[in-house]
C-alpha cells in the first residue's frame, strides 16, 4: 500500500471523503432509492471487503463506497415514467406521424384519433420471456401507463394457432403489428434467442406483419446485435447506455474528482472480488461493467460486487440484490 493513502488517512481526508460519500448515499437512499440502502445494510456490504492489511481494507471500503455513490437505481415511479415515454415516443407518435403523412398531413384530430384507434386494434403487445420474467412483468405497468385495453396484450404462444393441423398459422390474421416490450438488454443475446424464431415464423406466415422490439435500457451494442440477427422491423431503447457507462472502460464517466480515489485500484479490487463471485463474468455479464439496478431486480450485467447473492463457496452480502433466474438446469 502506498504511503499516499496512509498520509491522507492521517490527515483525516479519508474520513472526510467517507462522510461526504455517505451523505450522498443517504440522500440517494431517502429520495430515489426507495430507502433500499440504510447504514446497517451498507456496513454489512462494506464488511465484504476484507483484508489482513487494515490500510488496504480501509482503502477498498472507501472505493467501494464511491462505486455505490455512483449507482443508478430506477424505482417504480421512474420505470413508469420511462414506460409512459416508451408508449408515447416509440409507439403513439410514430403511428400518428404515419397516419398524417398518408393523409396529406391532416390536422383533423378526430380523424387521427379514429385511425390511431384502428391501428391499435391491429396491434398486439407482448413481453419478452416467459410470464415469470421481468419483460413480461413490466407489461402490467406498461398497460397502466398507456391506458390500453387489456385485450391488446397477449402471450407469445397466442400468436400462432395449430387448430388446422401441425402446421402453425397466425391466430389473428388481421393483426399487422406485434410489439415486444423488455426492460433491459445488455448484449442482446437473450432477446435474439427468444425472438429470432418467433419473428422468423411470423414473417414466413405473413411478410407484411411488422415486429417491433422496444426496451427500456440497452447497450448500443445490444441493439445492433438484435438488429443484425433478427428480422425485427424496429428495435429501439428509451435509455441507451453508451460506452461511458462501462465502469472501467476507456471512456468511463466514473472519473472521481478526489485525488484519493484511484480508479485503477477500484478496477483491480472489483475484478479481484468479481473473480471469486462470478469467475466467468467478474465485472458483470458480457463484461458490461454497469452500475445499474431496478426496483424489481438488478441485471447481471452490473458489477457482481453490487448484487451477488447466489450460493457458492464465497459468502457475500449484496447491497442491491439480484434475484437470479432459475433455468432449472442446476441441481
Amino acid at each position: 500500500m502506498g504511503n499516499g493513502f496512509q498520509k491522507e488517512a492521517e490527515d483525516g481526508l479519508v474520513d472526510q471523503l467517507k462522510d461526504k460519500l455517505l451523505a450522498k448515499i443517504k440522500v440517494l437512499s431517502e429520495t430515489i432509492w426507495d430507502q433500499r440502502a440504510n447504514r446497517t445494510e451498507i456496513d454489512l456490504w462494506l464488511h465484504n471487503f476484507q483484508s489482513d492489511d487494515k490500510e488496504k481494507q480501509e482503502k477498498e471500503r472507501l472505493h467501494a463506497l464511491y462505486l455505490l455513490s455512483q449507482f443508478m437505481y430506477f424505482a417504480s415511479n421512474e420505470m413508469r415514467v420511462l414506460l409512459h415515454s416508451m408508449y408515447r415516443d416509440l409507439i403513439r407518435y410514430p403511428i400518428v406521424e404515419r397516419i398524417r403523412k398518408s393523409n396529406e398531413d391532416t390536422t383533423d384530430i378526430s380523424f387521427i384519433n379514429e385511425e390511431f384507434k384502428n391501428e391499435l386494434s391491429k396491434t398486439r403487445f407482448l413481453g419478452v420471456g416467459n410470464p415469470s420474467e421481468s419483460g413480461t412483468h413490466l407489461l402490467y405497468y406498461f398497460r397502466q401507463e398507456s391506458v390500453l385495453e387489456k385485450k391488446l396484450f397477449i402471450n407469445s404462444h397466442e400468436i400462432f394457432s395449430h387448430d388446422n393441423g401441425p402446421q402453425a398459422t397466425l391466430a389473428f390474421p388481421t393483426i399487422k403489428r406485434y410489439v415486444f416490450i423488455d426492460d433491459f438488454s445488455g448484449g442482446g443475446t437473450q432477446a435474439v434467442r427468444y425472438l429470432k424464431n418467433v419473428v422468423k415464423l411470423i414473417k414466413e406466415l405473413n411478410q407484411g406483419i411488422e415486429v417491433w422490439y422496444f426496451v427500456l435500457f440497452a447497450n448500443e451494442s445490444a441493439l445492433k446485435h438484435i438488429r443484425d440477427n433478427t428480422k425485427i422491423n424496429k428495435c429501439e431503447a428509451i435509455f441507451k447506455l453508451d460506452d461511458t457507462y462501462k465502469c472501467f472502460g476507456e471512456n468511463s464517466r466514473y472519473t472521481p474528482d478526489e485525488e484519493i480515489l484511484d480508479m485503477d485500484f477500484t478496477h483491480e479490487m472489483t475484478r479481484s472480488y468479481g473473480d471469486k463471485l462470478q469467475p466467468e463474468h467478474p465485472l458483470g455479464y458480457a463484461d458490461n461493467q454497469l452500475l445499474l439496478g431496478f426496483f424489481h431486480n438488478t441485471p447481471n450485467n452490473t458489477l457482481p460486487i453490487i448484487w451477488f447473492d447466489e450460493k457458492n463457496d464465497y459468502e457475500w452480502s449484496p447491497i442491491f440484490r439480484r434475484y437470479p433466474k432459475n433455468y432449472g438446469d442446476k441441481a
Partner: protein
Amino acid sequence: MIENKNNPFDITKAVDFSDKEINDYWVDLSGDSGFIKMVKPTSPMPMFILGGKGSGKTHLMRYYSYAAQKLRFEGDIVEGIREDGYIGTFLRCGGLNANRFHHQDSDINWSLLFSYYMDLWLSQLILMVINDATKNCDKFAGCEEKICEEIFELFSRPNEDELPPKDIGNLIGVLHGLQRQLDLAINNYSFSPLGMENVKILTAPGKLVFAIPQIISKYFQPFKDIRFLYLIDELENLTEDQQKYVNTIVREKEAPCSFKIGARLYGLRSFSTYSANEVNKEGSEYELLHLDEYLRNISSATYNKFAKKLCFRRLSEAGFIVPDIKGIETDIKKIANFFEIDEKSNFLKKSTSFVELKYEGEIRPYFERLKKQLLKARQGNEKSIPLSAKNIDSIINYLACSEYPLLEKVNIYLLYQDWGKSNNLVESAKIISEECQKFTVDNSYQCRQKQRLNHFQADFFAQLLRECNLKQRYLGVSDFIDMSGGLPRNLLTILKHIYQWSVFNNEAPFVGNNKISVSSQREGVLEASDWFFRDARIVELNGTVIQDSISKLATLFRDIRFSDKPAECSISTFSADLTSISATAQKTIKASVERSLLISIPGGQRDRNTKRIDSKFQLNPMLAPRWDLPVHRRGAIALSTVEVNAIFDPEYTDSLNELLQRRIGRMTAPAFGKGKFQTSSQNDLIDQFGD
C-alpha cells in the same frame, strides 16, 4: 429495515401549514412572556413584527388571523370573536407579484394604482372574513343590506343608477370585478398600454380599508367594540415606494382598525409616507417587535421550555408520543431522553476514554506536541528555560494524569500560562502536578485547575477531540436549542436532519426508549449548519463578500479556540467600534446581522482601555458546527478597527494574514507572540486566509 414514520420535522415553514396545522402546531411561551402580551392584537397601535428567516413571524400572524381564530371557536363564531376582541385579516405580500406595478418611462401614476389595488384587495379580504363569520347570524342578516349600501356609496360610480348589492357575497363580487379589470390592464400594460385608459380609480386612497370596518361596527352591534386587525405579512416583497402605501395607512389609521406588519430584518425599505412625505416614528406611529431578539432575551429557561414544547407538539401530532396525563411539564422532560449525550461527571472521564483506547502505550498527541514545542524552545535557546532532554521528559511526566485526559489538557494549559511568564518550567510543572493530584482526590479543592475548568472545559474537550482526529460533538436537545439562536425554524431544521440521519442509520428515532446515536446527531447538526450558511446567501448584495467575511471571522475564532493558550473561553463573539471602520465593513456587518449570520448583542461591550461602549456581535450558533465552534456564548474578543476592516472589507484583506498571525501568535507556544517562532497553527491560518 426498521419501519419509520414520516419525518415529524419535515415542514419548517408556516406558509406550508394549513389553518388547522397553524393551530395544531401552535406553542405559546409560558408565564408572563405569552405571545398575546407581545403581539397585543386588540391594541390600536400598529406594530411592525421583524424577525430573521424562521423566527416564527408567519406562524404568529396566521395564528391571529380569522382563518385560525374560527377553528378555535367550538360554538358561536361571532361570540368567539367578541371574546377575542379582534378579528384578523391576513394578507401575504408575496402573492402580489409586486413588480407588475412598475414600468420605467411610463406616465402612469403607479403608486396611486398600487394603492387602489391594495385597497380593493384588503377590502375583499375583510369582507370575506365578515361574510364567513356572520353566515349563520340572524342579527347580521338584519343589517347586511344597509351595510352593503353604505359601502357601495364609498365608490364614485360612473353609472349613478347602478343599484348596490344586497349582500356581502355580491359586494365582494363587485370588488372582485374591479380588481380583475385592474389586473387585466396592469398585466397587459407592456403589450397594450392603451388598456390603461379604461382604468378608473373609484375611491380615495386608503378610504375603503378604514371605512368598511367602521360601517360594519356601526350597524352590527356584536362587532361594535372589536378591533379590525389587518395582518400584512412578507412586507419585504414590496418595493420602497409600495411600502410607502403601507406606511401611509399605518400613519393615517382610523378606529376600529389596526395593523400588524411582518417583515424580515432587512425588509423595511422605508418609513416615509404619502402624507407629505412624513416619516413614521417608532413609539409615535408604530411599535416594533423584534421577534428573534425577543426570544433570545427572554430567560433561557422560558425559551428552553418553549422550544421543547415545540418538539413535543411535532412528535405528538405525528403520533410518536402520547401526551402524559400529568401534563406538558412531564412531556417535555421526555424529549431530552431521546438523545445520546456525553457523560460529563468525573472530569469527563467516560467521554474522554477514547484517548486511552486510541493511544494505549503511546505518547498522547497533546504531549507529543508539547514535547516538540519544548524542543523547539531549547533549539531557540530561550535564556529563561534551561531545558535538557531529561527536563522535557520530567515536565511531561509531571503533567500526565492518564486517568483524566481532560486534566492533562488543563495542566498543559497552565504550563503555557507559566511559560508565557517565562518561569522555570520544570518547577512549574511540578507545582501543577501537585495541585492536580489534590484536585483529583477532592474536586472542591480550590486550585488553578478548578478555575480553568470552570471556564474552558468545553474548549479543552473540543481540543482533545480534534487532537485525536475525532469530530466535534454537538449533542442533546439543549445544545440544539442553544444553536437555534431565537429562530425556532433552526431547531426544527436541526431535528429534521438528525431524524433523517437516524432513519438512515436504522435507529427508529423518537420511538420507545430508543436513543438517537452520537453519529446521527453529529451528521444532522453539521448538515443543518451547512444549510443555514448556504441559505443565508444574499443574492441582491454581493453574497460572496458577506459569506467570505463570515468565514474569515469564524476561522479566526476557530484558531483562537484551538490555540495553545486561548485568550477567551468559548469564543464566538467580538466587539468593535463601528464608528471608525470603513463604510463597506459597516455595510457587510449590517447585512450579516440582517441575514442572522451575526447576532447583535444588546448593550454592546465596554472597551477595556477607553471605556467606550462598543458594538458586540455573536456568530450565529447555527454556524458553530461548521467551524467546530462552541454554541454557548461566553468570551468575547475586542477587534481593532484594522482587524474589522481586514475581515469585513475586501479592500483591506491583504493585511489580514499579518494581523491575525500577530493575534494568534500571542496564544501559541513556544514564542507566545514574541516573534521568534513560526508555528503550525499560524501556518494553518495562512492557508485559510490565503497567502
